[in-house]
């Protein structure tokens, strides 16, 4: 019988946490949040503030990118995204200024300057008779110079489709409009969540978690999920919904998954533990944490980590809930007025936002989970990302 203990591959120490946070915010940023006192000399247009000011970004139908000031919780501007709504996926440049939006049914990418809605980058991935879809998977390199997508191509012959091998596509963000990939490398199927690490690798969230070097395509296993090395009579291989990329507020990649631990006979649900697990990767240090403790009593699409205590995560769906991932303890539950697929929070940990599945964003106090604000958007957020841009 194989080892079946709860595994924590590594634990983030307090010092690393601090480093990670500092790295994300950049030199000069305040850890205390919206950094209103940090208004820089090089003032940005349209009343936007740099120096670590934080903006919440989301996409609504029919297809608009929205910029919300997290200090005032006011909508600042809405940018029209060309093409049909995709999944509302957003990737943000490290300087917080460019938001890359996946449009046209997961095919095209548009990069917006969030200070003025100017489109500074575009890439149409499909061409000729090859249809290319990217499922959520977009990330920007830590230096902001490269944009990564996972492309799922299908060649449309006149009387049949031919499924082709998925690949990581690397774009130069400086190529501007109508950019073409400068490199591609084969990757696994079913990759959705990706993230760029500071070491240059790109995390590939698929059946297993892998990392690829976007310079040469070398791939390594970060941690096996579907092919994990646990006794099948003790554990059910994980199922990860793997929707929405997040973790930017603390510089991490986090992917929850569901599993079952059979404590009796396999299939004997009366003796089984139904558990949430997650893999959490520190994008600065590449350290990995994998743990299953939280009971599967809440439906969530994602966890968002409390910047002030990384053992604490929040999830949303029909309820907003707060959990200790190390002990499995439920720390709080708050009923929501409708389903919210998505969740995010500010870097100081003072505000939680839930959105998606409707046209409202609800703001909550992480300590009490009580609602503190409410934004009505112009359209349905559907599956859209809810991401935090920290404007340098």
């Amino acid at each position, binding site marked *: 019988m194989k080892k079946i203990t709860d595994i924590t591959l590594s634990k983030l120490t307090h010092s690393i946490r601090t480093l990670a946070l500092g790295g994300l915010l950049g030199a000069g940023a305040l850890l205390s949040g919206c950094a209103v006192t940090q208004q820089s000399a090089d003032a940005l247009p349209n009343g936007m503030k740099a120096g670590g000011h934080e903006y919440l970004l989301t996409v609504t139908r029919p297809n608009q990118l929205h910029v919300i000031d997290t200090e005032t919780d006011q909508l600042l501007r809405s940018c029209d995204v060309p093409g049909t709504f995709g999944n509302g996926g957003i990737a943000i440049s490290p300087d917080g200024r460019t938001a890359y939006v996946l449009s046209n049914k997961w095919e095209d990418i548009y990069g917006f300057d969030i200070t003025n809605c100017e489109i500074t980058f575009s890439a149409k991935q499909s061409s000729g008779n090859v249809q290319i879809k990217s499922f959520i998977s977009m990330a920007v390199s830590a230096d902001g110079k490269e944009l990564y997508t996972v492309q799922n191509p299908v060649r449309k012959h006149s*009387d049949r489709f031919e499924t082709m091998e998925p690949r990581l596509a690397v774009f130069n963000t400086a190529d501007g409009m109508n950019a073409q990939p400068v490199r591609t490398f084969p990757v696994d199927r*079913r990759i959705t969540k990706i993230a760029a690490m500071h070491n240059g690798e790109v995390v590939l969230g698929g059946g297993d978690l892998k990392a690829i070097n976007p310079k040469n395509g070398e791939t390594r296993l970060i941690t096996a999920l579907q092919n994990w090395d646990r006794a099948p009579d003790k554990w059910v291989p994980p199922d990860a919904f793997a929707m929405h990329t997040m973790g930017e507020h603390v510089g991490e990649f986090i992917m929850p998954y569901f599993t079952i631990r059979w404590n009796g006979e396999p299939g004997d649900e009366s003796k089984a533990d139904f558990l949430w697990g997650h893999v959490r990767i520190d994008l600065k240090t590449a350290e990995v944490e994998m743990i299953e403790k939280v009971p599967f009593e809440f439906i969530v699409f994602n966890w968002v980590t409390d910047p002030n205590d990384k053992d604490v995560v929040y999830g949303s769906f029909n309820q907003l809930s707060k959990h200790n991932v190390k002990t499995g303890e439920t720390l709080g539950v708050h009923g929501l007025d409708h389903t919210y697929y998505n969740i995010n929070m500010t870097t100081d940990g003072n505000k939680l936002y839930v959105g998606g599945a409707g046209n409202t964003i609800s703001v909550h106090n992480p300590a009490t989970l009580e609602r503190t604000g409410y934004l009505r958007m112009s359209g349905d957020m559907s599956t859209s990302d809810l991401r935090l841009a920290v404007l340098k």
Partner: protein
Amino acid sequence: MFALASVGASSALAADGESIIRDRCLGCHVETGESATPFSRISEQRKTPEGWLMAISRMQQQRGLVITPEEKRTLVKYLADTQGLAPAETRELRYVLEKQPNVTESFEPWLQDTCVRCHSGARIGLQRRTEEDWKWLVHFHMGQQPTAELHAGARDRAWFDIALNQVAPKLGQVYGLNTQEWSDWQAADKQSLSGRWVMSGYLPEKGQFDATVHISELGNDKYSVTMDGQYADGTPLTGKGSGIVYTSYDWRGAVTINGVKMRQVLAASEDGQSLNGRMFKRDDDVLGGQVTAIKGAGITAVSPSYIRQGERKLLTISGNKLNGSVHLGAGVKVVSVVSRDDNRVVVVAEASQRAESGHREVRVGKLSSEMPLAVYDQLARVDITPSDSIARVGGGGGALAKQKSWYRAVGYAAGADGKPGTEDDIRLGYMPASWSLKPFDEIAEHDGDIKYAGTIDDRGIFTPGDAGPNPERKMSTNNVGNLTVTGTVHDGNQVVSGDSHLLVTVQKFVRALID
């Protein structure tokens, strides 16, 4: 191909079908040069009429096919006739063509896990393809429904590889293009359906009916239809319409009965002497029921199908050429004949107090009924069919109508062991019941489902609530609900109830001809 066409359709139709393929389809499909499979993809598949209609409609809507409605009808007919499914190949899966609601399927895990998590199993089982074409169908999914491999039940495994390399080869074996059943059916003698038929059936809004059906061939497998009969309560039933026979046995009828447009999906027996299937409202296909029709002499229904020891009651025997004396089996006598003609005999029957519990064969002259008459001591158990069901909210200003559900009570006597729920229970048949709803569980009770999800009428028809968010409800949820449907039968001194589970859910926004 022409041998088959000459039986029903004219050879002109066959020529038309092929020329339509040449004119309309070869912009994309290619001629293979193989005589057995002359057109790429098209010749590598066999399907039901609905299956071909779906494929051609998809080509129109998504691939730029331009085709006139008349050409489309001709092509569906041609393909269903020449590349259809044999009676033996559709027999077990007709429920999906008949649009039977609340069917619970059971398929093997390899098919269940890969295909049936999205489709009905019947949709797959009603297609025949070469292994290569099954593989192209897997490829198609990645282009047409790219997220199919990311759904629950797919994302936790190498879905595409499994579908392509394990499931498609198996489909090529189990549902391959060339089968003995199809060869046999192509070689079989085909029968015209013209003639006088008698039909019995049940419609949820009206109840049991029987009717004389005149079917007249107009040519090219097209028929005119008239229906003339009555419901169990004596209300007359008259109908008129048309029908078309695909693949020389598969009847699709469009009949207006008492002003209501109905559809018939019926399979003719291979000898052309019976038609079995379902008749339903065109605009509300849940509201329909099984029907059976025969051309020759026979009994199609006995109603009611039960008589209690010591009971005296009216029995109606429906059928064709009902001549001769009525026999109801040991211990059950015909007290008097109330009325009779060729198609319907109404008798006063009486079961003696000492008549043994059990099933009796009903005979009229030389004819015997496949459906027995049950003699019983007392009603002991009531089952509600269907045992699990779905209804869907609708209306409320939305584009989609409500999807109702309906129920019937089936009575049982306890049998020799005196214990209901055991193997020797005696099935009595459908019994009149009164209907009520209650919350299925504590959550349903807490959420007030009973108040919002809908109502059930005295015919056992459940009508769900209006669609759309309801601000009165928790999280402004739709008028969904988790309910128990209770049918209560009063029979003699017995009052017996049975329960059934009803989930009232949201609209089905994607409706396929074959789900």
